[in-house]
């Protein structure tokens, strides 16, 4: 057979062969050129994150993993210690009214800075860096996620290189969160004072910081490598590691296998359902830290079928829910649920029953609050009193209406679905029929989603306060946060709650704020629209060869908050 030749003088076979060979060679050899070495194996810890940071600028992202990675390099004025106290980091002391750091009227805050701090390139850290950071936050070109508090600063000045004086338009109680905790201070000299950081390379490669580690490189989708900062004020003792590498492993299941094979040394944020797989595995230990987040039920006080004439598309907070509008029904629902049994069944006792929107270890928690009792008899009695009498199929009726309610949470969460199913069973025992209608989280929480519009009966969600609970309590329980203006999706409208949240938000000093928040918590629970279920935990895992990890973790920070103490 004579091979047919093409016009280009190549026969088909040769052509196909060449194409194949070229594709193979290109595919195999192409990327190899980029595989460069790391230097000799040193003291390295590789920690798996299941999410990739969006960026490393402290002000542009609210994502937890962004903060985890950048916190090793960029520090704030203060941080929160495991016991919930605020400790100075770049500041020399925590300003209070007592030590003169805060003026009597609460409008002036003076922060004294540490004098011996240098940036990782050797430049001294000064008060000018703090002022520069404020200017960055206020620059309209920058995609700053939140200016809360910063936009209340009327004037910021530096009487000397190590003192910052902030004057506020009105007293700002959460002043300790500024340039701290969720945020940090930026190095002015790196930008030559130019406050437009919208396109700065620094957002992805923060090469200069004051923290124990400094940035080396970020291989997109693979890992972010940090190395010890020799200029760190703890040097040469700290950090002990030469390198800290955060690897990006998008599936937690894969990270668990990598931990078992030793491909990674630590892993961030496991699910409660994954505890069993790692418990008892030799050489691996779990770090279970209480978190400020808790699982709760939110009951809709407004009629899902109503419409607010002022806000079309949203329910009218003044039209009560036909069933849940009666406080006796709300109380009965809480009494019918055995929360301890849920904790035991789903978490094997690894967490605790929640008692308040503010967790027990939080400084603002009200210790007088106790878990609700489980009393189905009392629940039935309350429902009878409310006019709901036993009907067919064990479901109560009133005026020909069945006691049917919908419960809603995010899809794809096994534990939540199981919680709903258990609650469904408990409520049926007292004559309430619960229908589970879950939706994806982006639908549940969207602007036009059921929580915002008010088209739901009962919602299950997780939320909790930051170190400063002001924003959390305001956005969830203050009457001015009723949708569309916030997340008071219960539509709680109680002037007393509003008053105590406001007093707690404006009093100066944690001691003065605490009593107001404690009263607010009591009042919120009294509404019966907020039913706390169980406290959530932060679950991380470490290989035994990682030494120096603080026992019990830090509920206010992330799993690698103490990486400067780690050793291998």
């Amino acid at each position: 057979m004579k091979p047919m030749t093409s016009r280009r003088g190549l026969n088909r076979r040769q052509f196909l062969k060449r194409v194949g060979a070229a594709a193979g060679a290109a595919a195999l050899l192409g990327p190899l050129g980029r595989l460069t070495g790391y230097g000799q194996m040193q003291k390295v810890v590789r920690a798996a994150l299941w999410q990739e940071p969006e960026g490393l600028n402290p002000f542009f992202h609210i994502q937890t993993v962004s903060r985890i990675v950048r916190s090793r390099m960029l520090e704030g004025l203060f941080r929160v210690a495991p016991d919930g106290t605020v400790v100075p980091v770049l500041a020399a002391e925590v300003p209070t009214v007592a030590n003169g750091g805060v003026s009597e009227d609460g409008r002036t805050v003076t922060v004294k800075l540490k004098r011996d701090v240098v940036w990782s390139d050797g430049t001294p850290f000064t008060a000018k860096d703090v002022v520069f950071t404020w200017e960055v936050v206020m620059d309209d070109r920058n995609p700053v996620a939140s200016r809360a508090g910063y936009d209340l600063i009327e004037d910021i000045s530096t009487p000397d290189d190590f003192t910052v004086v902030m004057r506020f338009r009105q007293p700002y109680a959460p002043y300790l969160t500024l340039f701290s905790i969720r945020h940090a201070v930026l190095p002015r000299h790196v930008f030559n004072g130019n406050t437009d950081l919208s396109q700065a390379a620094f957002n992805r490669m923060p090469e200069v910081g004051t923290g124990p580690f400094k940035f080396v490189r970020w291989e997109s989708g693979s890992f972010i490598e940090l190395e010890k900062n020799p200029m760190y004020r703890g040097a040469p003792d700290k950090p002990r590691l030469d390198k800290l590498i955060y690897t990006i492993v998008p599936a937690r299941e894969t990270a668990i296998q990598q931990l078992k094979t030793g491909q990674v040394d630590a892993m961030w944020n496991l699910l409660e359902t994954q505890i069993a797989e790692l418990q008892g595995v030799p050489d691996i230990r779990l770090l279970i830290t209480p978190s400020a987040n808790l699982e709760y039920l939110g009951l809709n006080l407004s009629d899902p079928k109503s419409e607010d004439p002022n806000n079309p598309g949203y329910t009218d907070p003044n039209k009560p829910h036909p069933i849940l509008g009666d406080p006796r029904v709300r109380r009965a629902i809480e009494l019918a649920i055995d929360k301890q049994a849920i904790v035991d069944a789903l978490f094997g006792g690894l967490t605790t029953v929640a008692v308040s929107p503010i967790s027990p270890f939080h400084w603002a928690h009200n210790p007088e609050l106790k878990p609700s009792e489980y009393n189905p008899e009392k629940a039935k009695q309350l429902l009878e009193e409310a006019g709901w009498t036993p009907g067919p199929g064990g479901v109560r009726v009133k005026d020909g209406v069945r006691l049917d309610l919908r419960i809603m949470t995010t899809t794809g969460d096994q534990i939540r679905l199981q919680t709903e199913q258990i609650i469904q069973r408990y409520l049926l025992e007292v004559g309430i029929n619960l229908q589970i209608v879950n939706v994806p989280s982006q639908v549940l929480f969207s602007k036009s989603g059921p929580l915002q519009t008010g088209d739901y009966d009962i919602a299950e969600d997780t939320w909790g306060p930051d170190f400063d609970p002001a924003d959390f309590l305001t956005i969830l329980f203050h009457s001015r946060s009723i949708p569309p203006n916030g997340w008071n999706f219960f539509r709680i409208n109680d002037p007393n709650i509003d008053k105590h949240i406001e007093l707690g938000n404006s009093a100066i000093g944690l001691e003065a704020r605490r009593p107001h928040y404690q009263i607010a918590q009591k009042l919120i629970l009294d509404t019966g629209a907020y039913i706390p279920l169980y406290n959530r935990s932060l679950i991380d895992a470490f290989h035994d060869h990682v030494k120096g990890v603080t026992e019990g973790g830090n509920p206010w920070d992330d799993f690698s908050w103490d990486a400067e103490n780690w050793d291998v």
Partner: protein
Amino acid sequence: MLSYVIRRLLEGIPLLLGVTLIVYLVLISIPGGPLAAYRSNPRVRPEDLARLEKQLGLDQPVLVRYATWLGRLIQGDWGYSYVTRRPVLEMISERVKNTVLLMGVALLVTLAVAVPIGVYSAVRQYSLFDHAMTGLAFMGYSMPVFWLGLLLMLLFSVQLRWFPAGGMFTVGATLTGWEALLDRLRYLALPVLTLTVVSTGFYARYLRASLLDVIHQDYVRTAWAKGLAERAVITRHALRNALIPFVTVVALHMPQLFTGAVVVETVFAWPGIGRLFWDSALRFDYPVLMGVLTIGALLVWLCNLLADVLYGYLDPRIRYS
């Protein structure tokens, strides 16, 4: 031929415009939006949201946003990610080589396995081998990828310790030359195996059917009649013609070399385009999504054209005018 190609290229322009418009409208209509995560954060107040919306141009009407995006694209500007604020093209290009490596090797291995199986199944139709291969092919084809990937990982990484459990290279090691190549191959093994298991069936079955079509034709019988050996009849006469539609199918799958495999890249922590797309989808990062989808659409269209042209080239009976 040339005029045919030019005509097809011109026809593609309205097609691509239509595709981008529809994709844009679909993306916009998904509930959530780029600021969804910010909306449930108590520190991000309504005034912050309004400022961010304005910065991202989300306060503009949808069609204006599309027109702006398209206008910039025509000038070669693929825009900036809403999430990372980096140029879209930069984000795509740093991932594309990884995806091409994974998908390219997987395609080669798949073909290397599928072609012999397909040929042998057709030649020995209804034999034990054919039945066994048909069964296995369907099993692989219908296997949930995530589950299969994890299963292979448990066996080969955790139990046997032959291959690493995900990743693209050893993080924290110094490797050069052959060691680096070997390291890369070790990391490639499991994702490639997973992709091969799930896609071999498709190609093998296709080739089998295509070969069965030609094997009963007159010219093949003539070849047998001439007394040619089986090997010669099958490879020189039958397979050659059976491969023509097969090559087309392979060409139509070429865009996958770029778009990648979301699930396999996720299970094996492979930093490819599929994962970039998935991450961006979760965050409603419209510019990145539009970038990946537009390049994907462009490649689908080009590969269709390539398949048609290749068909004409490989099969002299087909002539375009």
